Structures are given as structure tokens and as C-alpha cells.
């Protein structure tokens, strides 16, 4: 049986978008909303639904778009064969605060369904699945730090016990007006490079590979 490898990745951190096929610089934007729009324009895709998403889902969507940019990798798989196992530290807190703001004032009480629907962290999985027509398993964990061991075990065991052939592992965080995200594609390869083999160690290495000293998670430096 062929080995599993981390075959592709896309990481958005600080001012860069780093993928296995190239690095892009994030254009300057006044605020996070504008920054995300600029990244979207970089992609040159036409997906109006993007504008309805909250910032967390936009971030996840954009990262996945860079991962699959000009790649036909998904064509190898049927929709139900590709799973998504994601995690983050902040759940949907940024959007939670928006929804909460809409119910703070009894005299101006208009909760918005288009905001409320995004007050769950797994919605980003839905957005990625809708975009790329993926129908495999979806699981969303919340953990303070990226737990490479748990992600590796969960995905390896899923491959052993189910018919999935590929999996996206993601870590997408938007909190305290800082965003960072990573998505890795795990699939089989006949000729894997040792550094790409799907192991806890390699996943961790790739996750932190481009982490500079400015990387924070929940206000803490990793």
C-alpha cells in the first residue's frame, strides 16, 4: 500500500500566503475585511458567495483556494472520499461578538440570520465543501494550540476504518484582529519524499515552518 503524504499546503500568515507552489505577498489593506478582499482579488476567481461569508469562513475559503489553485488534485477523488478535519483556538468568537452586539440594546434589537449562521466554527467546512463539492467526513476540534498528534492520529485512523482517500487538515484562526490559517492535503503517494510522509513530526514541522517570531495564538507566542 502506498504511503500517506502531506502533498500540498497553503498557509496564510503575517503578510504572506505560502503554498507548495509559490509564495504571494498579501497586499496592504486598511483592516482585516479589506485585506481579505484583496487576497480574494489576488486569486482572480468569481465566487460572489465569498462576500456573504464572515471573516473566519473567508479566511478558510481563501486558504483552500490557494491550496487548490491551478491544481487538478481533487479530480482523482469522488466527493465522499475527501474528508476535512479542522481545528482552531477561537471557535467563531469574532462573529459571536458581532451577533452579541446586535442583541445588546433592547431598543435596537435586530439579530441577523446571516451573522448568526456563522457563529459555529464548522461552517467554514461547509463553505469549502460547497465550493469544491466535497462530501467526506467533517470534524471540527477546538484546542488552544495546534495539536499535530491528535490530527495525525484522527486522520490515520479514519483512513484505516473508512474508505476516504484524501483529507484536508486545517487550522484557521481569527481572533483579536489577527488571522492565520493553514490547510494541508493528505493523500497517498507511490514515491514519497521522507520529509513529506504523513507523520506527527512532519505535520508539526510544516505547520511551524513559516512561523516567525511574530506568530501569536491567543495573544501568546507559540
Amino acid at each position: 500500500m502506498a504511503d500517506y503524504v502531506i502533498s500540498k499546503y497553503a498557509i496564510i500568515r503575517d503578510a504572506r500566503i505560502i503554498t507548495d507552489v509559490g509564495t504571494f505577498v498579501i497586499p496592504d489593506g486598511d483592516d482585516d475585511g479589506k485585506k481579505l478582499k484583496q487576497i480574494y482579488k489576488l486569486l482572480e476567481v468569481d465566487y460572489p458567495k465569498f462576500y456573504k461569508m464572515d471573516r473566519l469562513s473567508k479566511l478558510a475559503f481563501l486558504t483552500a483556494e490557494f491550496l487548490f489553485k491551478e491544481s487538478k488534485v481533487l479530480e482523482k477523488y469522488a466527493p465522499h472520499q475527501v474528508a476535512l478535519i479542522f481545528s482552531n483556538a477561537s471557535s467563531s468568537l469574532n462573529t459571536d461578538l458581532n451577533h452579541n452586539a446586535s442583541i445588546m440594546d433592547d431598543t435596537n434589537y435586530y439579530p441577523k440570520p446571516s451573522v448568526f449562521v456563522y457563529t459555529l466554527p464548522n461552517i467554514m467546512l461547509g463553505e469549502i465543501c460547497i465550493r469544491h463539492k466535497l462530501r467526506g467526513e467533517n470534524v471540527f476540534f477546538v484546542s488552544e494550540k495546534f495539536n499535530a498528534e491528535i490530527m495525525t492520529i484522527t486522520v490515520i485512523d479514519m483512513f484505516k476504518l473508512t474508505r476516504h482517500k484524501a483529507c484536508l487538515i486545517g487550522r484557521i484562526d481569527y481572533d483579536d484582529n489577527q488571522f492565520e490559517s493553514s490547510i494541508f492535503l493528505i493523500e497517498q503517494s507511490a514515491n514519497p519524499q521522507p520529509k513529506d510522509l504523513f507523520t506527527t513530526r512532519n505535520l508539526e514541522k510544516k505547520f511551524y515552518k513559516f512561523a516567525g517570531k511574530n506568530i501569536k495564538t491567543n495573544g501568546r507566542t507559540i
Partner: protein
Amino acid sequence: MEELFKKLKAGIIGVLNLEDMEVEDIETDDPLFNEGLGLDSIDALELIVMMEKEYGLKINDPKKGKEIFHSVRTIAEFITKNQ
């Protein structure tokens, strides 16, 4: 009525995050759902919130909402009839 059409179109663009759209881009009689702007069920619910917030009109049944929101004109007619 023209003023109301304009106000509604601007409201729709704002409330539904229709990026890069202007008031002139929305035809008064074009269907808003399925074809035309291709709005979905969450958009319909947002329009219900807009109706209550901006026009003081409460719509409790999403099905009734779909009829009222057929086009900008039908929304305007509903508002004119009920205010």
C-alpha cells in the same frame, strides 16, 4: 414609487452584501430569487429583518416572505399597501 424602488435596491445591496453592485444594476421587475440575483433562504430572512427594521412591517411566515420578495416592485407594493 421610483424613490421607494431606489431605496429598496440600496437596502437590498447593503443588507445582503451584494458587493460591487449599484442600484442601477437591479431591475425593478426581475425575480430576486432563483434566477436574477439568485438570492437564497438566508437572504430572504435578512429581507424580513430589513422590512421590520426599516419599514416597521413584520413578516412571520418565510413562505409569505417569498411571495412578497418576488421582485423589487412586489416588495414596494407590499410596503405601500401596509404602511
